[in-house]
């Protein structure tokens, strides 16, 4: 197959772009959840 590397790179690029973005969303969600839990705890203690 000629040009297979371009074809493979394109398929991987689609996966990589969405995967990296989803990881960034998951990491932001996790940080926010920690912060929300911390504030809820603080409000309960007060």
């Amino acid at each position: 197959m000629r040009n297979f590397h371009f074809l493979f790179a394109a398929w991987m690029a689609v996966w990589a772009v969405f995967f990296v973005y989803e990881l960034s969303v998951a990491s932001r969600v996790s940080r926010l959840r920690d912060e929300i839990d911390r504030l809820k705890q603080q409000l309960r203690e007060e």
Partner: protein
Amino acid sequence: MKSRVPITLVVAALMFFAGYAALFIAPDERTMHEIQRIFYFHLGSWTAMFTALTIAFVANVGWLLTRKPEWDWLGVSAVEVGVVSCTSGLITGVLWGKPAWGIWWTWDARLTTCFILWLLYISYLILRGLIDEPQRRATLSAVFGIFAFLDAPLVYASNRLWRTQHPAPVLFGGADSGLDPTMVKVLLFSMCAMLALMMIVLVDRYRLERMRHELDELSVAAETRSLSAGPALTSATKG
């Protein structure tokens, strides 16, 4: 969170099967041969992008009409996912352009309008980051989002209106356009898979925005409580 695992697996399976169909089921194209198979991921990315940006446009209009925060959350989430899909479309386009045309990029009408669209929505995201006040941020970004969306129909119509290096449309492109029936099936399947992927990412991104709002409300509550606790402590000390 656990309930999301089956749907994520289904979407991953759809994506894998779309890749398999594009590589092994779709017939070879006569002039470009196997490299034309990038088309299935490329057009899938654009379908996801146009859908996300249309959702963003509806959400922007929704915010301006109702001022409900949910529209703003949906707007920014859809724009971010639209930018991701656009990035995927641009990368797959560049990777297709090099073997097909011998160049990575050319400033023809289709590619240029696409690149401008990408820049406009990146600007939308930067603009949001610069404004602290939530109401003002939502209103300004909704207005900017509506303005940015004006480029989307231009991207779609560019290779119909002008002569471009980019191939002529194969779907809804007129009498000379068209695809092999198997290619159409694989293409529609790939587009559905990309749309499903875009939707689950959009749902996650919306959840993030909702959590941000919850955090803001909690921060205000904590601040109000600490402010009201201050004078009470002072009067208790005086007493």
